[in-house]
């Protein structure tokens, strides 16, 4: 049974990777590996100005917590932090952060990767494009590739 509680935040403001790494590792001597994943807003070759991120308040936190708890148990992680931003996020800015700590390197890599794959397909967030032309564009479509990435963790 795990006694590790994930740290989950859904917030408008940016995050600081260093602060999150430090929070997970300072003062302890059992962590051998920390992997962070940062997702950023790409400009799509200059076409995009920003992404608007909508979320389902309450459910977003609950769903990410569920995914993070699965990852802690599956990979015996020593710590797991996931932060997802919402609101308008300009190109080049951070969108999401996952930090996973473990005694050994592969579990830390797998834990962060697992959380990202499930977060993509089941955390209730939606992205709408805002173009450089000043117009609100389309909602981004879900990708089959993301479903396939999630399915690699089956079995």
């Amino acid at each position: 049974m795990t006694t590790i509680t994930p740290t989950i935040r859904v917030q408008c403001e940016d995050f600081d990777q260093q602060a999150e790494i430090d929070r997970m590792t300072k003062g302890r001597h059992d962590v051998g590996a920390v992997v962070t994943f940062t997702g950023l807003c790409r400009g799509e070759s200059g076409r995009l100005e920003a992404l608007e991120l909508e979320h389902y308040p309450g459910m977003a936190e609950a769903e990410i917590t569920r995914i993070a708890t699965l990852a802690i148990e599956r990979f015996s992680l020593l710590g797991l932090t996931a932060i997802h931003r919402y609101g308008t996020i300009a190109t080049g800015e951070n969108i999401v952060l996952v930090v996973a700590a473990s005694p050994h390197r592969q579990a830390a890599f797998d834990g962060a990767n697992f959380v990202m794959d499930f977060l993509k397909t089941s955390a209730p967030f939606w992205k709408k494009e805002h173009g450089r032309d000043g117009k609100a564009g389309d909602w981004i479509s879900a990708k089959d590739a993301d479903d396939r990435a999630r399915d690699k963790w089956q079995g």
Partner: protein
Amino acid sequence: MTKLVYFAWVRERIGKAEEELALPAEVVTVDDLLNHLRGLGEEYEAALQFPDVIRVAIDQEHVEHDEPIAGAREIGLFPPMTGG
């Protein structure tokens, strides 16, 4: 009364973020709910014309379309997620 909440293009097409509806007794499953809503007006039809792509949460947990909705306090309807 059941609270319905809408997100992303489902919200935009229906034209509101949430509403409280009294659902008839014959609306038993999520499928029934989607069919019922499509009869409420063209904005609902525009949002839900391809019900297979609509994702549904009951009380903030993902459910399949054959799930009964009895006892639901809040039902969320939305497109496939694109976070991360």
